[in-house]
């Protein structure tokens, strides 16, 4: 197991190096003079020279990259252009609220998606199947920002059941988590249904039924467990999309997380913060996919880690 984790981590190195290169090149790809743009309107020649020196733009590119990487490994990602606070400090305080929201949303997505997918497959071609799949189609087609606003109008403004924003109580999680989770739930439901239908048609399921096992035991222990591998893959990918979705949902619900911080940073052209956030988001995504790979073996013992 440890060897497998080690091997997978080594395989990640080229991707992570590529990600670091993209993020390093990020500022250098700005059309025109990045230093002038970052220094802002009305900056003097001295200010621009200072920014250039600060970012190391006056040195050869290879040297700049190694210097950037060296600093990154010690946790030095520079200072925010807006607040002049270290970027790690800016992101540090906003990181956990996003993780909490993402995890709650993912729980909502998995619960809804698995339930709808399994029911649709077991009750194939019944009204429950049509209802689940229509719901899933609506879920993947719904713009999250619109769903957020409509939920806000109904549950906060009209019926006064939930708070419009904030993250103090469990109630404040309901609307953002549902908004974020619906899209992922829809994809999970569609994949679960397809995977379950495939498994339900196989011989071992017929054997299980022939043995006289209870229908619920056949469906859950025999069929669902075998259908989980493709479902797990899509769940990992959906978690990535969900992280991306926090950018929109946090902005609507004024959630104090890194998604909203990214939008604010893009608006203010705060490049050190944007760069680091892109790195944080991609690292999270890559690590989640690693965890998904590791979970395969737990679900299906036939998959070897060697």
């Amino acid at each position, binding site marked *: 197991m440890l060897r497998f984790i080690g091997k997978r981590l080594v395989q990640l190195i080229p991707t992570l190096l*590529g990600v670091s290169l*993209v993020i390093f090149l990020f500022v250098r790809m700005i059309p025109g003079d990045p230093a002038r743009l970052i220094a802002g309107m009305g900056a003097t020649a001295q200010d621009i020279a200072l920014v250039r020196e600060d970012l190391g733009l006056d040195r050869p590119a290879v040297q700049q990259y190694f210097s950037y990487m060296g600093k990154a490994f010690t946790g030095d990602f520079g200072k925010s252009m807006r607040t002049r606070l270290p970027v790690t400090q800016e992101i540090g305080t906003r990181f956990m609220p996003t993780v909490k929201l993402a995890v709650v949303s993912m729980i909502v997505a998995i619960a809804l998606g698995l339930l709808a997918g399994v029911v649709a497959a077991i009750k194939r071609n019944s009204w429950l199947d049509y209802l689940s799949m229509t719901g899933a*189609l609506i879920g993947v*087609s719904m713009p999250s920002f619109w769903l957020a606003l409509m939920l806000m109008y109904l549950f906060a*403004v009209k019926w006064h059941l939930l708070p419009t924003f904030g993250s103090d109580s469990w109630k404040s999680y309901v609307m953002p988590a549902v908004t974020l989770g619906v899209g992922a739930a829809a994809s999970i439901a569609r994949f679960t249904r397809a995977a379950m239908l495939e498994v339900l048609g196989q011989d071992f399921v017929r054997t299980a039924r022939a043995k006289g096992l209870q229908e619920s035991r056949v469906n859950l222990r025999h069929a669902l467990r075998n259908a989980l591998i493709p479902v797990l893959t899509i769940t990992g990918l959906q978690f990535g*999309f969900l992280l991306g979705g926090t950018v929109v949902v946090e902005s609507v619900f004024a959630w104090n997380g890194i998604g909203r911080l990214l939008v604010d940073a893009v608006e203010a052209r705060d490049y050190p913060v944007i760069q680091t956030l892109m790195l944080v*988001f991609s690292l999270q*995504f890559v690590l989640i996919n690693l965890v998904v790979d590791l979970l395969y073996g737990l679900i299906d013992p036939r998959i070897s880690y060697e």
Partner: protein
Amino acid sequence: MNNQHLRKLLRPFFKRTSAVIGLAIVLFLVIVALLGPELAGNDPAKQFYDHMLEGPSRLFPLGTDQLGRDILSRLLNGAHLSLAVAAAGVVAGAVLGIPLGLTAGYFGGWWDAFVMRVMDVLLAFPGILLAIGIIAILGPGLTNVMIAIAVFGVPQFARLVRGSTLQVKSLDFVQAAHAQGAGAVRILAKHVLPNVLAPIVVMATLRTAQAILIASSLSFLGLGATPPSPEWGSMLADGRAYIETFPHVAAFPGIAIFLTVLGFNLLGDGLNDMLDPRLRRNL
């Protein structure tokens, strides 16, 4: 392809009601996008000062916004923006991604390894984040949104086409063309590409749905279309401030985006059924 073949191919598509509904929605949208300005009763930028923030009425079927502009006229005028940006972005992504996937799959070796590692890097920025990163570099605006959608699509097309190319390249007719002395470009263009087109068409349709969501999300966040553009995402952003008192301002652009995305998703699923019989029973 004779008529009988075509009928056989199209039958699974037209047998599925949802696919026909999707096709109808998409065709309707294309007509609206082409004729939008003629269909609209009012200039999308014209302000009716006596009718600000009014609900639906005979004069304004979908009501007016905070500046007294006719929401229906703005939606009709904005249709071509939403569709054109998404479609152009997806096509550009396909044009760049398909040759990469074809050559990576066909030639293999170091080129394959290199292309796929670069694609892995692009895919490591999930969902809308790559698009936001590109907007951060290039600045807001619809052209840049289109570029962002294109870059977002490149790895997805490249991966899909590479996989299909790997399957097709070992088939007899490709080997025969190779034995006859056909060059790589000819084999890829004449023999491999036509045989991997089906999944490309399905993916392009489904990606258009996703691209419309991304473009409108970016405009909603103020990173895409800029006011007074009647782009649907930015119309929704305008309505956000009035959600407590005049929800119709945000509701109608949202419904328009939802129906458009739904149309492309239904059409994509229908095409998938038509072109990939293996999935016909399950999805």
